[in-house]
């Protein structure tokens, strides 16, 4: 099996792994507030996935077949892009909440 094809997904996995201590060592409490997490992410995911689908169809960007699985969701959306729009905002919220705890401010 060609590991290179999983490079994009591996990068996303590393992002989740590296931010996990923010939840459990810094007390970010993002993963432990799943309802609020879904509520916060639903609209941005919908908007930016739509943007991505349009951008791909209008040839704004494309993906190197060497580093992606080739697995596509409806509307020709690469599985990696869907993963991106879920993983990266979670990383940002973990950062926000960890900073909030450390600074002890709102």
């Amino acid at each position, binding site marked *: 099996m060609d590991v290179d094809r999983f490079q994009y997904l591996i990068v996303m996995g590393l*992002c989740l792994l590296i931010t996990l201590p923010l939840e459990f060592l*810094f*007390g970010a409490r993002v993963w432990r507030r799943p309802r609020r997490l879904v*509520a916060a992410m639903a609209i941005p995911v919908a908007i930016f996935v739509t*943007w991505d689908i349009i951008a791909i169809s209008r040839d704004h*960007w494309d993906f190197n077949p060497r580093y992606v699985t080739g697995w596509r969701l409806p509307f020709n959306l690469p599985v990696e892009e869907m993963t991106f729009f879920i993983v*990266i905002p979670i990383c*940002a919220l973990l950062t*926000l909440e960890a900073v909030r705890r450390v600074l002890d*401010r709102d």
Partner: protein
Amino acid sequence: MEYTWASVVACVIVIGVELLWLKTGLFKKLTFYVSWAIILFFMVLVDGWLTKLSAPIVLYNEEESSGIRFPWDIPVEDYLFGFALLTLTMLLWDHWAQRHPDDAASRRTTGPLIRRR
């Protein structure tokens, strides 16, 4: 230049949504700017890896962007795209806090990570 314009417009809309509608006050908080400094550092690392021209994962059509890449090979539009995506998520995260009082309560009972004396 469609990506360039779309990314600028997205940022203006997100800032407008906060100032005119959500009014969470996040832009007035130090937490927001410290968080963004940290996010920006990691964004450069991750996006730098995704966009490096020596072995790119994402390929950009230079006709639809400014062609300006910094640092390394990161298209500058990606920062605007990232700002709009992540700031909107943070704003809504804070916005929905009011709907989830149990979350706020759990934070109060656990207390700050570093206790002030």
